[in-house]
C-alpha cells in the first residue's frame, strides 16, 4: 500500500513538472504578450506608444528574456522559495492576488458543492427507484434545465430581475460600501442578498450532471442479484436501498469529487465574470486573456497540483469506503 502510494506521488510530481512546462508554453502561444496588451490599453486611452516604448514595457515587465530562461527562473523560485512571481496586471505577488480571493472562492465552492450533491444524490436515488414516474420526469427536467440553460445568460437574467423587480444592488458579493467594511450583521445580510444568484446558478449547473449519473448508476445496481437476495431476506425497502445499491452507486461520484478541489483556484470563470464575483474565476480568465504570465501560469500550476491531489484523495476515500478496492485489487 505504502509502496503504491509512493509510486503515485512520484508519478504525480513528474506529471506536475511536465504540465507546468506545457502550460507555460501554451500561455505564450497566442500572438503578442502582456506588454502588447498593455500598450493596446494605453493607446485605447489615447496615449501614443512607440516601438521603443513597447520594448521598454517589455523590459519593465521582465518579459524581454528568452522563454526558457523565464520558465526556469519562475519554476526554481516556486520550488526554492515558494515564490510564484509578480502579476503584471496588479503589480503584486501572485500569491497575494490569489490569496485575496481565495477565502470567498472557497466559501462559494463549498456552498455550490453542498447544493449540488445535497440535491443530486437524493434526487438521483429517488428518480431511479421511481423510474418513469411523474416525479422522475419532473426532477429530470428541472435538473436538465439547469444543465441546458447557458449559465452566463441565466446569470444576467437573474441579475436583471434582481435589479428591476427587487431593487437590489448588482453583482459582486457585497455592495460597494461593504466591500472593505469589517464584518457586521449588516454586511452579512448584504452578503446573503448577493449570494443567492450565484448559489442558484452554480449549484443548478452541477446538479443536473450529478443527478443523472446517480440515477443511472442506481438503475444499474438495483436489479443486480445481491439486491434481489437482500430483498428476499426481508430487509425493509428503505434500509435495503441505502445499504446496498446506493452505497455502491456513490463510488464513481466519490472518485470524481476530488477534481472539484481545483475549482478553488479556477473559480467559475464565465458566471463570475457576468456576476462580477470576487472569486478567482474572473482573475483566471483575465490572466489568460491578457497573458498575465505568472498569474496565469501559477493558477494553472496550482490547479493541476490540486487536481492530482484531489484524485489521490478520491482514490484514498474510495479505498476507505469500498472494501473491494481496499482489498488491494487494481484501481
Amino acid at each position: 500500500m505504502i509502496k503504491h502510494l509512493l509510486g503515485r506521488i512520484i508519478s504525480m510530481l513528474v506529471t506536475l513538472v511536465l504540465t507546468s512546462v506545457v502550460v507555460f508554453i501554451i500561455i505564450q502561444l497566442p500572438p503578442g504578450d502582456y506588454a502588447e496588451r498593455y500598450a493596446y490599453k494605453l493607446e485605447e486611452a489615447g496615449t501614443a506608444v512607440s516601438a521603443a516604448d513597447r520594448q521598454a514595457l517589455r523590459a519593465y515587465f521582465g518579459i524581454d528574456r528568452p522563454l526558457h530562461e523565464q520558465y526556469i527562473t519562475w519554476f526554481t523560485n516556486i520550488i526554492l522559495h515558494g515564490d510564484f512571481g509578480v502579476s503584471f496586471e496588479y503589480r503584486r505577488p501572485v500569491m497575494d492576488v490569489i490569496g485575496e480571493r481565495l477565502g470567498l472562492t472557497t466559501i462559494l465552492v463549498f456552498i455550490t458543492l453542498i447544493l449540488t450533491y445535497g440535491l443530486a444524490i437524493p434526487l438521483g436515488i429517488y428518480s431511479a427507484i421511481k423510474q418513469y414516474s411523474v416525479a422522475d420526469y419532473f426532477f429530470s427536467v428541472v435538473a436538465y434545465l439547469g444543465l441546458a440553460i447557458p449559465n452566463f445568460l441565466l446569470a444576467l437574467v437573474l441579475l436583471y430581475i434582481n435589479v428591476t423587480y427587487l431593487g437590489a444592488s448588482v453583482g459582486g458579493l457585497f455592495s460597494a460600501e461593504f466591500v472593505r467594511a469589517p464584518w457586521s450583521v449588516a454586511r452579512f445580510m448584504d452578503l446573503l442578498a448577493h449570494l443567492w444568484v450565484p448559489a442558484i446558478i452554480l449549484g443548478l449547473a452541477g446538479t443536473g450532471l450529478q443527478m443523472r449519473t446517480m440515477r443511472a448508476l442506481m438503475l444499474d445496481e438495483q436489479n443486480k442479484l445481491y439486491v434481489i437476495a437482500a430483498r428476499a431476506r426481508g430487509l425493509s425497502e428503505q434500509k435495503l436501498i441505502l445499504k446496498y445499491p446506493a452505497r455502491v452507486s456513490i463510488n464513481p461520484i466519490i472518485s470524481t469529487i476530488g477534481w472539484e478541489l481545483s475549482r478553488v483556484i479556477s473559480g467559475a470563470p464565465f458566471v463570475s465574470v457576468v456576476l462580477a464575483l470576487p472569486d478567482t474565476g474572473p482573475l483566471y480568465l483575465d490572466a489568460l486573456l491578457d497573458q498575465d504570465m505568472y498569474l496565469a501560469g501559477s493558477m494553472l500550476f496550482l490547479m493541476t497540483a490540486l487536481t492530482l491531489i484531489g484524485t489521490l484523495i478520491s482514490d484514498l476515500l474510495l479505498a476507505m469506503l469500498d472494501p473491494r478496492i481496499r482489498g488491494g485489487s487494481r484501481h
Partner: protein
Amino acid sequence: MAIQKLANLFQRLKGHKKQEENTYFVATQFQLMWWKFRKHHMAVIGMSVLGILLVLGILAEFISPNTPFTRDNKYIIGPPQLLHWIDPQGKIHLRPFVYQAVGTRNPVTFRMTYKEDREKIIPVQFFVHGDPYEWWGIWKTDIHLFGLAEGNVHFLGTDELGRDLFTRIIYGTRISLSIGVIGVLLSFVLGLLLGGISGYAGGWVDNLIQRFTEFIRSIPSLPLWMALSASLPKEWSGLQVYLAITVILGFLGWTSLARRVRSMLLSLREEDYVMAARIAGCSDGRIITRHMLPSFLSYLIIDITVAFPNMILAETALSFIGLGLRPPIVSWGVLLQSGQNIRAISMTPWLLAPVIFIVLAVLAFSFVGDGLRDAADPYSR
C-alpha cells in the same frame, strides 16, 4: 395542472406494451433495446425533438423564409409577428394571415416600436418564391416552404439589422449540431480505441497509455483553446478554424471515456462468461465486441449523450468570450451572444429565442441518453 395533463398523455402512450411479451424471447438485442427505450416517454419525445431539429438543419434553406443575411429594412429589430385567423370584422380566414407592421421610433429614447395595421391583411402562403438559394450546393431554386407573396414574415422577429431570426436559428441548427457530432464522434472513437487497448492488453501498454491519459487530462482546455484558435492558418475562415478546434478538442476529450472503458474491461476480463468464451476459442475481437462491449454499453451511451450537450454549450460559452464561432457565421452560440445583454432582456426579448432551441436540444439529448441507457442496461427487465 400541466403535470396532470402530461401524466394522462403518458398513460395513453403506454398502450403499446401488450404484444411485446409474446415476442420477447425471440427478439434481437436491438429490438429488445427499442422496446425498453419506448418505455421512457421523455426519451421518445426527446428523440422526436432531435428528429425535428435534424430535419430543420438539413432542409434549412427550404424551411426558412429568407436567407440568414437578407435584411428587411422595414422591420428592423421587430418583435415576432403573430399569425391570425380572424380579422377585425370577425371574419374567419382559412389561410392564416399577418397584419402589416408599422414601425415608429420613439423620439426621446430612440427605441423602435411596431404596431399592427389592422387594415392591411397579408395572407401567409406555402411554397412561395423568395430569396434564391442553393440547397447543399446541388439544387438551385427560390421556393420556400412558407412566406408572403410580397414582403417578409418574421415569426420570431428580427435583429438590429432586420434579419429574420427564425431563419437564422434554423441555419444555426445545422452548424451547431454538426459541430457537436464531429467533436463527439472523434473523442468517442479515440476513447474507445485507447481505453480498449489499454484495458485489454494491460502490462506496459496499459501503463504507457495511462500516463499519457493523465498528462492530457491535466492540461486545462481553456488556455489550450485560446492558444489553438490563435495559431491556425489565417487563410482559414472562421468556420474552418472552429471545426479544426472541435477536432482538436475531440482529440483531447477522450480521456474520461478511455478511463471508463479501461476500468470496465479490467473488471470484465475476470468475469466467468469471458473466461468461458475464451476457453471456447473465441478471438479477442469477438470477445470484446460480442461479449464485453454490450455489458458496458450503457456507460458509453451516457458519456456520449453528455458530451453532445457539452459541445453545444461549450460553443455558446466560447462565443461568449469571443473564442468560439464569430459572425458572419450563424450558430446558436453566435445568435445567443447578440441577445446576451440588458438591452435584449429588457426591450427585445425575442433575441433570446435561440436559447429555447439550445435548451430543447440539450434536454432532448439528455433524455434520449437516459432512455438509451435504460434500454441498454442488461439487468433491468
